[in-house]
């Protein structure tokens, strides 16, 4: 399975994502510069964390209107898996691929530590290797991770089972303690915590690698005969 890690000016978790896919997951990956990439050649698209365009205007706002996001939208519409982590999640929200918006953390501080998450939906292509309701350890690292959506949107997310991860101790004030959501089709996941930084026990947690393993397994079952 071939992953594209989209790199914007100011991305800084692109190498972590690349490392997790290449070295831990043992799958193919390329770092794809936002100006030059053709995403059609890849089986999944990863939008990494960081501070694209210096977080100017709003986090993710400038990257959301860059040319490569037109490609991401087209590929997402065709059902290709798209994962946005941290700043990648902010880009997905700003581009309208996922509903809601990010606000500054309730207590305004930038937070960088391990959080306990609950797997709220293990029936997505990103989470089948987890148990429903299982708690996992992922690091967070953000100043604007306070997920906001109005009551109507929240009710819709709940009704469609689009809430994939929630925080056990809501660190940033997110609506419904939401840490990660998928789109209605289930192929675009945005989350603030970092699965790629929880891919090996030596760095504190290996819980995150199962997210990538879920993707690979589900992709193989759908695309490769006789596995």
């Amino acid at each position, binding site marked *: 399975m071939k992953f594209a890690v989209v790199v914007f000016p100011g991305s800084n978790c692109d190498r972590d994502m690349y490392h997790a896919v290449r070295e831990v997951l043992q799958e193919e990956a390329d770092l794809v510069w936002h100006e030059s990439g053709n995403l059609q050649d890849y089986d999944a698209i990863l939008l990494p964390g960081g501070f694209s365009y210096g977080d100017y*205007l*709003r986090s993710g*706002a*400038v990257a959301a*209107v860059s040319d490569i996001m037109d490609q991401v939208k087209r590929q997402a519409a065709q059902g290709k898996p798209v994962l946005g982590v941290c700043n990648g999640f902010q880009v997905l*929200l*700003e581009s309208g691929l996922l*509903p*809601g*918006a990010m*606000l*500054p*953390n*309730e*207590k*305004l501080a930038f937070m960088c530590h391990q959080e306990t998450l609950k797997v709220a939906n293990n029936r997505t292509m990103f989470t089948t290797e987890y148990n429903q309701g299982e708690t996992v350890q992922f690091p967070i690292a953000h100043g604007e991770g306070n997920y*906001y*959506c*109005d009551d109507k949107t929240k009710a819709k997310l709940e009704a469609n089972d689009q809430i994939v991860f929630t925080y056990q101790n809501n660190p940033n*004030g997110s609506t419904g303690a939401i840490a990660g959501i998928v789109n209605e089709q289930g192929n675009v996941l945005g989350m603030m915590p970092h699965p790629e930084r929880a891919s090996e026990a030596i760095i504190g947690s290996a819980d995150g690698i199962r997210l990538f393993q879920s993707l690979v397994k589900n992709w193989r079952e759908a695309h490769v005969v006789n596995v």
Partner: protein
Amino acid sequence: MKKVTVHVTLKEGILDPQGQTIETSLHSLGFTEVEEVRTGKTIELLLNDQDNVEARVQAMCTKLLANPVIEDYQLHVEEALQS
């Protein structure tokens, strides 16, 4: 030339922790009459003259300058002083 000032503010009902922090600080300085502080941002644009300045800037706001999920915006259009 036209000068357009865009004021972007958080929608009513959306928590503004920065505003609350400023409010607390003003209270501690003795400005107890302050009932509420809301923060926002100002974006100034200089545009060459055309007929539909306001509509164009509205489009800029919905496409990029403001996020309609959490923000409201107001425009103020004036003649730019030539320097």
